[in-house]
């Protein structure tokens, strides 16, 4: 990492102890994943498909990781009859990155029906990823029929409660939340009191300059409540992160990229590796969106790229997987 970058980041323009330039930015999203690079406290994001032109030098940071989401292993309907193939394509993209990510975040709906062979299939494919560490949070499709018992057995060994946990990487504090359990009739995603209380104690000791990454399956902002695209108590979770100058929220669930900036918090949803879903309200229901087979990868690959300087969004760019 260049020293120049470091100097820039350490400069505190507002003299309030919050490093505005240190906000995590993870702005560029591709159909199957986003590649994020931590540079001097700044998280940059590149679309997976647009990386061919990026030099390895440009990609170097203190920390890089990839987010993938909604692989729906086991899905076999016309929207995508080969979800294993498209997950494999996503992994190939990851492996072709000029700078290898330290780890992968999978933001849920690993499987379609929570079947053991579906979990096994994803595990098997991800063994082919150059990044060996994969951090998961469950989607509603991963906890079907057993209240998440199997998910916890597989991925929750170091987790609390229904599978929430935190970890630190290169000074960044990551919080994996579960908002797909104990859902109430008529409601949205839900975190619950126990998890909120855990989260409060988890961040208590952290300095306000610690960059925070929160990842969970269902968006932690109100994307489209009519389709269940939101979390009932997300405001209570974000309220517990108020002191931090940089909070990046990474979600899946809606099978398309979206961004929102609210104060010190940037929200991002990732595309699926399996099939696209319609834009909010653009179809009678949020079911899988069917596109001609030859277009599937291009639809999955459509990405919003969003660079933020300080608190201000500078732009959004679309790119495709192909």
């Amino acid at each position: 990492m260049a020293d120049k970058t470091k100097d820039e980041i350490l400069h505190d323009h507002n003299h309030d102890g919050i490093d505005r330039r240190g906000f995590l930015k993870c702005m560029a999203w591709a159909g199957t994943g986003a590649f994020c690079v931590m540079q001097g406290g700044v998280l940059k994001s590149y679309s997976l498909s647009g990386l061919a032109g990026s030099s390895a030098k440009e990609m170097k940071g203190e920390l890089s990781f990839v987010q993938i989401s909604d692989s729906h292993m086991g899905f076999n309907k016309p929207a995508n009859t080969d979800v294993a193939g498209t997950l494999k394509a996503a992994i190939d993209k990851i492996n072709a990155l000029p700078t290898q990510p330290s780890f992968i975040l999978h933001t849920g709906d690993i499987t379609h029906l929570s079947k053991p062979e579906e979990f096994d299939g994803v595990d098997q494919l991800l063994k082919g990823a150059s990044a060996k560490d994969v951090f998961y949070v469950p989607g509603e499709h991963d906890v079907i029929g057993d209240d998440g018992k199997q998910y916890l057995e597989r991925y929750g060994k170091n987790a609390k409660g229904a599978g929430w946990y935190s970890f630190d990487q290169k000074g960044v504090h990551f919080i994996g939340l579960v908002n797909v359990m104990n859902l109430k009739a008529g409601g949205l995603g839900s975190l619950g009191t126990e998890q909120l209380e855990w989260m409060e104690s988890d961040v208590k000791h952290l300095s306000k300059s610690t960059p925070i990454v929160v990842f969970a399956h269902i968006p932690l902002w109100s994307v489209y409540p009519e389709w269940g695209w939101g979390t009932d108590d997300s405001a209570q979770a974000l309220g517990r992160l108020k002191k931090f100058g940089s909070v990046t929220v990474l979600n899946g669930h809606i099978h398309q990229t979206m961004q929102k900036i609210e104060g010190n918090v940037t929200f991002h949803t990732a595309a699926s590796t399996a099939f696209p879903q319609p834009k909010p309200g653009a179809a009678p229901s949020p079911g899988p969106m069917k596109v001609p087979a030859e277009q599937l990868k291009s639809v999955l690959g459509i990405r919003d790229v969003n660079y933020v300087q300080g608190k201000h969004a500078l732009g959004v760019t679309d790119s495709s997987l192909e």
Partner: protein
Amino acid sequence: MKRTVLTLGVATLAILIIMMAGRSTTFGSTMEDKPATQVKIDNFVFSPNPVTVPVGSTIRWTNQDDIPHNVVSDDKSFKSKALDTDETFTYTFTKPGTYTYFCSIHPKMTGKIVVQ
């Protein structure tokens, strides 16, 4: 106490035998022969909704979506497994009342069965 349980057991057995007998005949009229009331799950909606049926009616839910759904009563008195495309769940309502239910995978999906 033991005698009561035994009596109940015998009674249950008797009912079972009667039901089995009913099923084995083509003209027998048992509860199971009544056609189930259909509720389809389509585009993340239960329809028709609400449904009003007499006591003893069976409801059959069929998932017509490409996405799995389930049928769970709010009070957890009945709960289907996840229904993949074209899979069905049936439940017979033996007591009058209003039964609200939802899909616990997509909790925005709610429905109501009124049993009279």
